[in-house]
């Protein structure tokens, strides 16, 4: 196990390095460059020179690459080209918004998806199962932005129940923070909840047909105890794997949802900076996303071994 962990850790570092290298190449391949955008197509040569120097673009590419890796490794992400603010500040400003959105979306997905899947499995082919299955299929098929739009129109505008735009920091109070996140979180979390529901249902069905469940019933245990103490424990193992991709699903979703609900989070920052060729910001956001993502997977693998002691990572 220990050796496995060390290997995984080394691989994670490698993956982050590779990701950053790919990003570097991507950024140089992007059509258009920040210099012409900043100085205009017929910009003053002296000004262009100045911009080049400030951005370190006059060095040969391999020197740029070396400096880039060094700055990434030391987390000196530089300044945004346009807003002239340190990238770190911009990311730190956007991060809590995206994390809040992801956390509430995750909670919504788990709270809806897992119970729905369990009910579907233990009352298979009942009306509840059919309704849950139908909703799960619809949730999987709905484009997140469309669901967002519908929620804004119906709940936000027609009914006027909830605010529909922007974000309030949690320091402004729990309710203002939460109320503005409910609709975006539903838009992001529904697809995730649907995947969880389907996965939970099939995993639970698998477990419920096992001998030890029958034995538990035969011993005269109440259904609730059988389900909670015996079935859930094994039934939720495959669900944990889905949790591993939860972050990816939620981040993908956040890119779109933040756009629909005008939340200035990481997704917005990423889209804006990629469209504006703001290299340092794009690099910073990607570094962060890749790190979170790679270590999250690492963590899920460990969690997997903890939940299911039969899994032993060898080699």
């Amino acid at each position, binding site marked *: 196990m220990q050796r496995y962990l060390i290997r995984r850790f080394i691989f994670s570092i490698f993956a982050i390095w590779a990701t950053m290298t790919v990003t570097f190449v991507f950024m140089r391949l992007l059509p258009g460059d920040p210099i012409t955008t900043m100085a205009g197509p017929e910009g003053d040569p002296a000004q262009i020179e100045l911009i080049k120097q400030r951005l370190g673009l006059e060095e040969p590419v391999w020197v740029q690459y070396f400096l880039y890796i060094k700055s990434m490794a030391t987390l000196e992400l530089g300044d945004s080209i346009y807003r002239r603010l340190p990238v770190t500040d911009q990311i730190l400003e956007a991060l809590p918004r995206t994390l809040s959105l992801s956390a509430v979306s995750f909670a919504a997905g788990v709270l809806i998806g897992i119970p729905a899947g369990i009910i579907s499995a233990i009352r298979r082919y009942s009306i509840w199962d059919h309704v849950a299955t139908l909703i799960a299929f619809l949730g999987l*098929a709905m484009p997140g932005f469309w669901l967002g739009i519908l929620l804004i*129109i119906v709940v936000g505008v027609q009914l006027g129940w909830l605010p529909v735009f922007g974000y309030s920091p949690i320091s402004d109070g729990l309710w203002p923070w939460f109320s503005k996140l409910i609709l975006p979180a539903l838009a992001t979390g529904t697809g995730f909840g649907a995947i969880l529901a389907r996965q939970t249902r099939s995993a639970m069905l698998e477990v419920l047909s096992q001998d030890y469940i029958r034995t538990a019933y035969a011993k005269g245990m109440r259904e609730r105890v059988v389900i909670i103490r015996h079935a859930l424990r094994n039934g939720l193992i495959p669900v944990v794997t889905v949790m591993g*991709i939860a972050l990816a699903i939620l981040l993908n979703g956040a890119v779109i949802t933040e756009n629909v609900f005008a939340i200035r989070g990481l997704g917005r920052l990423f889209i804006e900076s990629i469209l504006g060729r703001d290299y340092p910001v794009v690099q910073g956001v990607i570094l962060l996303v890749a790190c979170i993502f790679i270590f999250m997977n690492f963590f899920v693998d460990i969690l997997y071994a903890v939940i299911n002691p039969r899994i032993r990572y060898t080699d």
Partner: protein
Amino acid sequence: MAQDTIQAELEGQRENRRSFRYFARRFRRDKRAMVGLVIIIIFVLCALLGEWAAPYQSDAQDYELLAPPTLGHPLGTDNVGRDVLSRIIVGARISMVVGLSTVILAAIVGIVLGVAAGYYGGWMDMIVMRLIDILWAFPNFILAVMLVAIFGLGLTNVIVAIALAYIDDFARVIRGMVLMLKEEDFVTAGRAMGSSDTRLMFKHIFPNAMPPVIVQASVFVAAAILAEAGLTFLGLGVSPLTPTWASILNDARPFFTSAWWLATFPGLVIMLIVLAVNFVGDAIRDINDVREYGPGVTS
């Protein structure tokens, strides 16, 4: 001769379950799958017929701006008086083309990578898998956004970007199948009888790896259609001038609260086609009993 006889016998054992007739019979009995198939056929027809099937020219403008659904305009008109139904029918083409061509592209590349990694193993596996791991470190949709930003807008670029961004799942599934199958007795038997690598791969391993690949392909088509819609919504789509389902929605953004039909119908058709693809994919999975994949699960 002897080799062929034994092979025919080996294949004959699975013939029953693998035959098309068996498949068609199970498929017809699945109500959801049939509903899905009908929806897909309707949209494919829309895509093929395009303007021919539409009641109006998709860019023809009526005097009635933002008219709610009536008999003349069953799904209403947009802000410049164009018939929404006609635009949705014409827009089917882009969704179908994106869904189909991304999956073909991704399947070809994914199969080459997956088979190379799984069958030959060793350093080939090492390189391919590390490449895939890197792709995997990016959430798919975010990667697609980056790729479109690099390639630029346009149909081909969107297709290539989506195919590349979502390819990792494909390659992983195929590699896993190949790894499992190449240890099977019938492959060893084929090898012992002197079959070449190519023959083993295409005659023995590949046909058996197909069911999960097809299931993965259906998941992929659904994801690709949703990805195209998302990209278009962010302004990174095919072209602002071509009507696509997502661009009809996007153009209507300022009028959402006053014209519910503009906010509803284009999204509804995206949902319908993805739903239909998922239904059909699920049915294929059930028939082949490929357990390990949930519906629509892709990072």
